Structures are given as structure tokens and as C-alpha cells.
């Protein structure tokens, strides 16, 4: 199976800080995704990428950017963290069988 690794399980940052969330997959999959999950709101798509240097906005891209310089790595960037970005962030990679593989998640708290 595909292994998707997120760099940090828990982060605490201050308002205005720049935050990097890293995600690495161990297979050669084109499609990668960043979601955030908040209680009662389910999984919401922030950004996705279908190839190196290609990125597309999801449903809630405001306040975020992404980077895909290598196929195995997809990074989510919060340029200036705000308290309303406190959330669980989930990265996923899509296998060509149609299965999405998720990382363990990164729980971000912005103070």
C-alpha cells in the first residue's frame, strides 16, 4: 500500500507566523490533495495537484498556498496563520486503482 507521511502530528503556532505542512508519498503517484477537517464540517478540499508544479484550488483555498516541486512531496503553506486556521489537516495521494491514501493528519493550533 501507499504510505503517506505528514511531517508533524501536532503544531502550535502564533498568529501571523508562516507555517509549512509537509506531505510525502512513497509511490510515484501524480495526484495529491490537502484537506482540512473541522467538527461538523467534514473534509474540505483546500488544494490539489495532478503533477509536479501543477496545482489547482479546491473549495477553500483562501489563506493557503501549496508547492509541488517533486512528485513525492506536496507542501501546504499558511502565509500568515490566523486563529480560524486552527484545524486538522489531512494530506492524501491517489493510487491509480482509485484508492485514496491519507496521512495521519497534522493538528494545527494557532494562538
Amino acid at each position: 500500500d501507499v504510505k503517506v507521511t505528514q511531517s508533524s502530528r501536532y503544531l502550535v503556532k502564533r498568529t501571523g507566523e508562516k507555517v509549512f505542512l509537509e506531505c510525502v508519498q512513497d509511490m510515484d503517484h501524480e495526484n495529491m490533495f490537502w484537506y482540512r477537517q473541522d467538527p461538523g464540517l467534514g473534509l474540505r478540499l483546500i488544494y490539489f495537484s495532478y503533477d509536479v508544479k501543477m496545482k489547482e484550488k479546491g473549495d477553500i483555498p483562501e489563506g493557503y498556498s501549496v508547492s509541488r516541486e517533486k512528485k513525492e512531496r506536496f507542501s501546504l503553506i499558511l502565509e500568515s496563520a490566523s486563529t480560524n486556521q486552527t484545524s486538522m489537516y489531512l494530506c492524501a495521494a491517489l493510487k491509480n486503482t482509485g484508492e485514496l491514501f491519507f496521512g495521519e493528519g497534522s493538528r494545527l493550533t494557532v494562538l
Partner: protein
Amino acid sequence: LAKTTQPISMDSYEGQEVNITCSHNNIATNDYITWYQQFPSQGPRFIIQGYKTKVTNEVASLFIPADRKSSTLSLPRVSLSDTAVYYCLVGDFRNTGFQKLVFGTGTRLLVSP
């Protein structure tokens, strides 16, 4: 991408069979139907995928009628550990390239003793 609709929540007891239905009226010809299970503080995990009729694996069955406008995930003899949120996702997953995968609200299943 086909929009999906599921019940918000369901309750069951241990040992019962649970059927969760997902509606996807605008499913496209090349779309597959995939179900995921999510426990608290974890990422969703793939359960089963199908295109038409019936698919069965070691944990679940997936029933898809001929018109493919809905699908039903069947969990036989649930246990307390099946308490989770279940999502159905519809899309042309096997095609490389542009893939915007948006999840619906999911169904929260609570299994009681």
C-alpha cells in the same frame, strides 16, 4: 464530479447488518464509487470500490443498481469498533490527470452494545 448525498447519522447494535445508502444522481459513465471509513483523529481509510452490480471483500459489500444513481454499503454483523464516519466518493479515479475529489458530509454510524 458527482455530488453525493448520505444520511447524516445511523444507529445500530452489535451483530446487526448495517446498510448505508449514498445517492449520486449525476454519476458519469466512467465514474467509480468508493467508500471510506474514518475514525476520530485519523485519516479516512479505503473500504471498497465498485462500478456496477455487487462487489464484496473481507469487510463489506457494495451494491450498485443498474442505473448507478445510488449505492449501498453493507456491513455484516457490525461490532463496536465499526463506530465511525463513512463517506462515499464518486469519480473517474482511474484516469490520470485532473482529479478534484470532494467529499460529502458522510454518515456517522454509532454501534451500541
